[in-house]
């Protein structure tokens, strides 16, 4: 089965797909290793060049696929690629441009790709990552962004596509910008995002939180936040907090304790099965920042999601009450994703079609 006929506007049939394309060495494999596999950025120096399409299925709050294309392949020019199989699903084309290199050829190839897509698969969002901007001055970054934007928009309007869904992001794997960019890309693909945002906004009001983020734990992409404006600093601290919790959990939470210890713990003075001594199945954590005595709280929602919220100064003693309110919202979030999942499967049915050729 080759993926069926051309899909209609925005028809979500299966799992959303992120397609990583761009010139060789532009940083595609590094990006997917850092974001989805927690590879330390410095270790990307040892990555081998990608020879064939790497398809990965991300087990996450919303299962999606990441396809990493080798830089030298132009899928529109290479016979044997089944376009429907690649672009038929709803998703995003992430085009990576190395900002530290001469980018004219990359922009030209991107332009022709966008034109091809606009004609046949206008449901695909086009996300341009102007990448490796670490080490570039802020002025220079903006200059490059302006230049690339103009080159693309001119070309598009020459061909009569004024409103193509093209978005630009300045990114680097050496800081949070790459995660922030992915957050924005993913958020566009979440059905009923508004409902999620409303839930978080209401939680912030009840608990007097300054800011709340719902994170995909493995990738540290935030998939929703309340209506207060996002600032990089609050996103970064919440995202770093998740790292701390993941790191601690790896060291202490992944090896089985002995039966002997369990027997001891269930005996004097507690006299209770261990399960009954525990108040929470999902992990919860709180940190109190010295500056202004400001707490930040974190709560696992399920295997993939965590809620992180920055609280008002001096409110650490309100944690019991906060936890009760958070419990309610967490239940709501679980329901939300149950429903979304059920819908997605109902329409999409089986998994993604395979690419038409091996190379």
């Amino acid at each position, binding site marked *: 089965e080759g993926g069926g006929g051309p899909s209609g506007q925005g028809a979500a049939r299966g799992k959303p797909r992120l397609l990583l394309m761009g010139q060789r060495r532009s940083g595609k494999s590094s990006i997917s290793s850092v974001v989805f596999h927690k590879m*330390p950025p*410095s*270790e990307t120096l*040892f990555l081998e060049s990608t020879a064939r399409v790497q398809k990965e299925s991300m087990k996450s709050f919303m299962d999606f696929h990441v396809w990493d294309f080798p830089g030298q392949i132009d899928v529109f020019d290479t016979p044997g690629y089944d376009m429907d199989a690649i672009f038929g699903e709803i998703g995003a084309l992430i085009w990576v441009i190395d900002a530290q290199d001469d980018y004219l050829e990359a922009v030209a190839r991107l332009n022709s790709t966008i034109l091809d897509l606009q004609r046949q698969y206008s449901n695909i969002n086009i996300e341009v990552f102007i990448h490796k901007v670490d080490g570039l001055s802020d002025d220079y970054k903006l200059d490059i962004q302006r230049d690339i934007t103009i080159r693309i928009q001119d070309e598009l309007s020459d061909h009569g596509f004024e409103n193509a869904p093209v978005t630009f992001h300045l990114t680097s794997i050496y800081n949070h910008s790459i995660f922030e960019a992915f957050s924005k890309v993913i958020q566009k693909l979440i059905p009923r995002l508004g409902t999620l945002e409303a839930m978080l906004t209401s939680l912030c009001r009840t608990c007097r939180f300054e800011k709340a983020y719902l994170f995909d734990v493995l990738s540290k992409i935030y998939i929703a936040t309340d209506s207060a404006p996002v600032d990089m*600093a*609050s996103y*970064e*601290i919440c995202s*770093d*907090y998740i790292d*701390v*919790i993941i*790191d*601690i*959990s*790896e*060291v*202490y*939470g992944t*090896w089985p*304790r*002995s039966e*002997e*210890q369990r027997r001891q*713990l269930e005996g004097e003075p*507690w006299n209770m099965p*261990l*399960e009954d*001594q*525990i*108040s*929470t*199945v*999902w*992990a*919860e*954590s*709180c*940190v*109190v*920042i*010295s*500056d*202004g005595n400001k707490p930040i709280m974190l709560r696992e929602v399920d295997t993939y999601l965590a809620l992180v919220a920055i609280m008002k100064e001096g409110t*650490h003693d309100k944690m019991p009450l906060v936890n009760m309110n958070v419990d309610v919202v967490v239940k709501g979030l679980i329901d939300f994703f149950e429903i979304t999942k059920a819908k997605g499967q109902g329409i999409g049915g089986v998994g993604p079609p395979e690419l038409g050729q091996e190379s």
Partner: protein
Amino acid sequence: AIKKPKKKKVLLMGKSGSGKSSMRSIIFSNYLAKDTRRLGATIDIDLSHVKFLGNLTLNLWDCGGQEAFMENYLSQQRVHVFSNVGVLIYVFDIDSHDVERDLATYQSILSALQQFSPGANIFILIHKMDLVKPELRESVFTERSQRVRDKTKAFAKSWARHTAQVPGSGSPNEDEDIEIQEFATSIWDQSLYKAWASIIHDLVPNLAYIEKHLEQLGKAIEAEELMLFERTSFLVVSYWASKEGMRNPYSDRQERMSNILKSWKQSISRFSGTPRSNEQFRFLDFKSSGFSVIVIKFTINTFLLAVLPPGEARFNSAKLNIEIASETFAFLDVPGQYAKQPAQP
């Protein structure tokens, strides 16, 4: 008049660019790894008195490694530099193009050290291991430290022979050995903390006393594990684990936790906009169905980490007990103070 004993020096040596000032700045001055790219070559010797806990001051000599300086240390400044040394930390750059030459310089340093401070502890850091592919790191480290070991042995032999010929220096001893401890390090991961925690370990006064009290606390709160961190460096000063805690297969967890908590402190500093040298956080807890963790500002100069079996009541009672116990450890903050024995019950 009673003379204060001179504080023993900690010498930091190695070729220029090998990374000495970088690691010192990360461990003791809250630098981020990437900040070290801005460091210039050290001119002559950079002396610093690093306060560690309340009652230990490290007399750290960061010796600029350019050849002219090295020659000067070995000649004009020989007595000045090499006498009264407690610890020598010698740094080898794994990326060096002339290992033979590095080893020759190392040998000259050893010789000066044996002459003026024969009892000094020697630590060898094979540094910048991040530049080696992960799968090759172990074998490259083994190979390089073996060469250092061989060089040290050869020198020890010749030194023993040499001293034997000096009249009045006792009986000749052909297997006289010089002990060294090697570590693979990089500023980009926790390996740096492992090396420096070992270096610091032998210098901390009252260690046995601290350990005894840590054990008491650990048992009282049913902890699996306790770590006591110095607040600026986040090096582990003292450690205790229960029988169960010792079953944890992550043998590098002390340096891991140092690294995790110190980078966390630096993240918070970015968020709060206050200097990295500030306290940044005073409390962190974590509860799950498998275990609980408390990290808490313990005494003025220390943080305590406690890993506990799961359970709400257990957690609350442990937290209370830790707060009470912190008074027992207050001596850690008093300069020059030696621990008084606690009164007999």
